[in-house]
């Protein structure tokens, strides 16, 4: 287990939902995919979801699967409506300029 705040520091990430306290979110694993139909069926709670998909449906899928945080790779930039919905659903959103490959590698190393 690691804290989301530690991971954000390691990836030069920005918490774009600052009302969500990253120091209180624990990560046990990660999931990397942009197809939401797949994420819905396979992602699990406690995982950081790394994606470039920024459609509003990401929040519903995170909420359904119990994902506490979505990491937007390559500076993928969701609309304000997505950020507002995330706050409402208590899901943290983080943005990083790194690629999904780099983001997964760093998370994997920190967890193992």
């Amino acid at each position, binding site marked *: 287990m690691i804290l989301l705040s530690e991971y954000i520091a390691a990836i030069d990430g920005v918490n774009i939902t600052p009302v969500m306290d990253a120091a209180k979110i624990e990560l046990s694993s990660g999931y990397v995919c942009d197809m939401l139909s797949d994420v819905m069926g396979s992602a699990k709670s406690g995982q950081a979801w790394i994606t470039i998909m920024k*459609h509003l449906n990401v929040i*519903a899928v995170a909420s359904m699967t119990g994902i506490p945080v979505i990491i937007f790779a390559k500076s993928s930039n969701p609309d304000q409506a997505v950020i507002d919905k995330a706050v409402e659903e208590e899901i943290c959103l983080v943005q990083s300029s790194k690629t999904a490959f780099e983001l997964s590698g760093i998370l994997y190393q920190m967890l193992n």
Partner: protein
Amino acid sequence: MSPVALMQRVQDLKIDWIAITDHNSMANCPAYEKVAGDFGIAFTWGVEIQTAEEIHLLAYFDDHSQAQEFDKLLYSSLLPLQNDADFFGDQVVIDENENIIKLEERALINSSIWGVDEAVDMIRNHDGYCMPAHIDATANSIISQLGFIPNPEMFDAFGITAKCNVEAYKQQVPYLETNSLIRSSDAHYLADMGSGWTKFYVEKPVMEEIMLTVSGTNGRLISI
């Protein structure tokens, strides 16, 4: 597919009305429309937009000047990548006599920067009609990309594949009206033509009438 060979096949199959929906471009609609006219086949201008989420979204237009305006905006929204002709083939624009009038260099296989919501707005602003393509497919469908259809009411209808078992599929999408499902062949080759089709009972072959079949207005009918 050459327009003459295509329309000959459409005529042989006794299909009365077709649309072509090339990937991210309507540049070939004028030539195909002329040849369709020669064969007495009704023709609708269409395009399959690949949105930023890699959803395939079909747009159809009754108004051709609006369609051309839309096509320009769509073109400028495509990611500026060169087509790899060795891999994807040449992207040609032809006239009705199959003369090549333009070689398109920008990769039409790629996505638009428009998200699906923005693409729908752009279609609506140009008096177009829109439906997500092959919603029962496992790739590039609104359901594969977004997990579920966020707001079905934003679309006019929903495209299904030639082989979709509607009875079984309806269990997965109980919130969609059967009347709003339109089956098509999505034919990329002559051999696939006619593999999927929809019957419309309408006053004339225009998209506006298809929308009346979806709502069952004034005796219009649709069956798949």
